């Protein structure tokens, strides 16, 4: 029964979701099932936070070399939850709103003045690493690599205004690459992946695919 019941639940939910797409009368049942899914997802997010906290508390208690980082993470989790969830919006001291997550609150200030610049910095560093990686790895070792390199150069230069300054036809050539060869390959991949997903989905809702409950 430990295998049969989950398989039965999957089959029933799978069929309801498929039928919801084609037969509107099934919609209310499908909507109710999706509500259950949202509740499960919300609970899983809380479990995720609890798990991160548990792992990092363990690192701190074992004096792991990464313990200082784990302490920063734990402190951030506790403070952000306290500011954003538990402190009321009315908690104002020294002109600063300590509770809530709206504009002007401590939560909002930490987010906009610490988290946003840090993420932006991480992302912008990519430009430097891409430049270094391109210099080292983008070598015309084979005809395929040559085609890839030439295409990359055309797209890179065609996507920015300097491309049209260098040659009027550059944006057009870049657009042609995006709209013809790129599209042909992307569409083939998309259709192939979609057919694979349909086949796998059918196997699951017909009860033929049972690996997700373990065994076989």
């Amino acid at each position: 029964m430990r295998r049969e019941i989950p398989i039965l639940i999957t089959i029933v939910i799978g069929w309801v979701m498929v039928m919801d797409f084609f037969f509107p009368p099934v919609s209310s049942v499908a909507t109710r099932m999706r509500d259950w899914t949202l509740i499960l997802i919300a609970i899983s997010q809380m479990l995720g936070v609890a798990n991160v906290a548990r792992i990092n508390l363990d690192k701190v208690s074992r004096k792991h070399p990464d313990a200082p980082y784990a302490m920063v993470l734990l402190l951030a989790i506790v403070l952000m939850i306290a500011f954003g969830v538990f402190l009321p919006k009315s908690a104002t001291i020294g002109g600063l709103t300590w509770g809530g997550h709206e504009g002007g609150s401590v939560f909002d200030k930490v987010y906009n003045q610490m988290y946003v610049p840090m993420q932006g910095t991480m992302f912008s560093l990519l430009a430097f690493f891409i430049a270094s990686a391109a210099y080292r790895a983008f070598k015309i070792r084979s005809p395929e690599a040559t085609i890839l390199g030439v295409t990359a150069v055309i797209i890179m230069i065609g996507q920015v205004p300097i491309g049209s300054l260098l040659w009027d036809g550059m944006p057009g050539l870049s657009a042609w690459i995006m709209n013809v060869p790129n599209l042909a390959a992307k569409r083939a991949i998309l259709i192939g992946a979609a057919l694979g997903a349909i086949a796998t989905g059918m196997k699951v809702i017909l009860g033929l695919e049972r690996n997700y409950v373990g065994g076989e």
Partner: protein
Amino acid sequence: MDWMQRLEKLDRRIIFVIMLIAVSIPVLVRLDMPIPSSKEVDDYYETIEKLPDGSVVFFPADFDPGSVAELEPMMRSALTHLWRKNCKIVCFTLWDTGPGIVDAILRDMAGKMNKEYGTDYVFLGFKAGREVIMVQIANSISGVFPQDYSGKPTKDLPLMQQVDKLTDTKLIVNISAGYPGTKEWVQQVRTRYAVPMLSGCTGVSAPEYYPYYQSGQLSGLLGGLGGAAKYEARVGVKGDATAGMPAQSMGHLAVIALILMGNVLYVVNKKKAGAR
């Protein structure tokens, strides 16, 4: 090891400095570049232009601070364009680290364009659930978001008394940094409910969305900072995307120069090694 071999193994810190100089020049020296439009940007612009004044627009802003440099300019231009036509905006995000930045952009733009919260726009915040949320919100917005981002009951907001499902809106304008984003909105919602959809996405994900644009499932597409700059030019605003174009152009030129230099050195050194 001769100097050409040493050059081929150039210290990466020198490459970083070259890149820094390339992107800094346009910041120090003002460079104005013409920004020609493209068909997908023109289609994006025309789709909004053809909307009846005062239409309600569904605006999922699915991005986080990592993509702000690329996506914030297109979100600001889209809001400018939509609000010039007095469109009403129902905004929310499916990215957990997105609400703070989306809320800040909305409040800033609403202040600049004299738009009132609750009447001209609402921000519903974030909810976990990705594709499930997409389908659920298409059926009932207040069912998924009983409260807005600030905790007010959604049904008390004047705008939300006019709309409660996707088909009450005239257009979906998605700002997308990846998953969940444009691809999932097309698959789960656009095809099913036949509401026209526009996408503004990061440069790296744009090639993935071209099939949806060519099939007509996307009525227009803005790809990366370049797409945002072209759209700013169409809307008639000089925003951060336009300002960033010279730096991005120089950055691309630097990468191309490095690729060419790397390959010349690779070929020359390979020939030398073969001759020995």
